[in-house]
């Protein structure tokens, strides 16, 4: 992989740091009037998701990271791996638990997910921003309640638990924002 000098640093560039691929979020030029120039870089570590700041001497270079994002459809899990497919090439790829992480609860069969590949292997699985899932269990709730004050917990088909309004019942399909875990509404039939 090519090396990148500080003057090539910009948002979106993927570099290696502490053996982990990272995404540059911001690069700020810092220089004392009579002194050495530095680049203060805000980066996100792609595996751990940690955001941190690093300072480089201007002109220093770091190794680039072979990272790419691809849109794949989720197929199924065999319990150990989660399998995804490229709908154009029908090529399949398997992600392990560390790549899927907490997002396992938002994986819906045939839904498109964004998979981050590092050296060809999946390191992050990002579900679509909104998914639709059936409620498998929730309390019947009170009749006549339409405002949904406070709501109630509902378990979805994948095991995810979200708060839904009292009028929503078991068996209905709801739309959820995967970034916040919030109920958005009942799915359009």
């Amino acid at each position, binding site marked *: 992989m090519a090396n990148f000098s500080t003057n090539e640093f910009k948002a979106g560039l993927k570099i290696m740091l502490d053996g982990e691929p990272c995404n540059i979020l911001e690069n700020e*030029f810092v*220089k*004392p*009037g009579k002194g*050495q120039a*530095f680049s203060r870089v805000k980066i996100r570590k792609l595996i751990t998701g940690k955001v941190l700041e690093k300072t480089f001497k201007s002109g220093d270079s770091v190794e680039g990271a072979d990272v790419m994002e691809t849109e794949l459809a989720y197929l199924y899990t065999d319990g150990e791996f989660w399998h995804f497919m490229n709908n154009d090439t029908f090529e399949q790829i398997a992600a392990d638990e560390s790549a899927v992480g907490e997002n396992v609860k938002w994986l819906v069969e045939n839904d498109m997910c964004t998979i981050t590949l590092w050296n060809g292997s999946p390191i992050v699985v990002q579900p679509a921003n909104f998914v639709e899932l059936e409620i498998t269990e929730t309390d019947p709730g009170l009749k006549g309640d339409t405002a949904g004050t406070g709501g109630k917990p509902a378990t979805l088909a994948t095991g995810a638990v979200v708060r839904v309004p009292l009028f929503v019942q078991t068996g209905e399909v709801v739309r959820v924002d995967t970034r916040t875990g919030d109920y958005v509404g009942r799915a359009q039939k």
Partner: protein
Amino acid sequence: MTVTNWQPSAAISTLKKRAQILQKIRQFFAERQILEVDTPALSHHTVTDEHLHSFSTLFQSPLSPKTQTLYLQTSPEFAMKRLLCAGSGAIYQICKSFRNEEAGRNHNPEFTMLEWYRPDFDHHQLMAEMDELLQLILNCENADKLTYQQAFEQHLFCNPIKASLDEIKTVAIQYGFAEIAENEHNKDILLMLLFSQIVEPNIGQKRPCFVYDFPASQAALAKISPQDPNVAERFEVYFKGIELANGFHELDDADEQQARFENDNMKRQQQGLASMPIDQNLISALQSGLPACAGVALGVDRLIMLALECERIEQVIAFEHNRA
């Protein structure tokens, strides 16, 4: 079709306020009978400082078949000192200065500098005068004053003058700069790193802060202190995370100046940078005699950013470099 970007990067209302601030600055100097001067932006010479990169261009004279390399000045310092040597008395200048390889939130490769010189002042007297100017323009309280050593000790708990390279490396590693520290053999680079990243954000937040008595190794064009050979009579001013100005009790020894320029060029060669032609006009002027004086250069755009509470330099200049 080419994408055009003809609109100014600063609001017209900001440019009006900018003009008023410049007027106030000129008034400040007029009241003190300090002469406004105008020296060349293009010169046959330039700074030798390893951390400053000049723009150069070729002059084709109609009277000579040979082209000459000319440099855009990174500050008007050399020419203003020649005026002082020629007997100008106190002088100031507001001019464009140019620095290659500098662009960012607080940097534009072309910027406005206010530089002034006060014969018979030392750096403390000049700091006092500058404090008055800052209060006038920024409506701020009077400034704090710290030595470089005090600033370092207060925020990094180590003595920057006495500490060895290894001790400074350890501090830099503690503060999360291992990548730079482990491969750095120049103590000053690490001091600059720690100062800009750790000290600067913690000083001069409520009121401006003058930091003076820099390490002698960072003297630039300042006199070495007669009381302490480890420090130079150089100061900087910081306010709200912005470095505003750099001043010196000016070095007036021609031989020492020549030696510092040569030493700069040696460092440049070690870095793989080209040597710069030493300004022999400045050396000759110093030989004929520079009146004892202090001088300071202040970034006017940054002063205006602070006065108008703007976050980025392009908000206070008509066209930042991408639109220029």
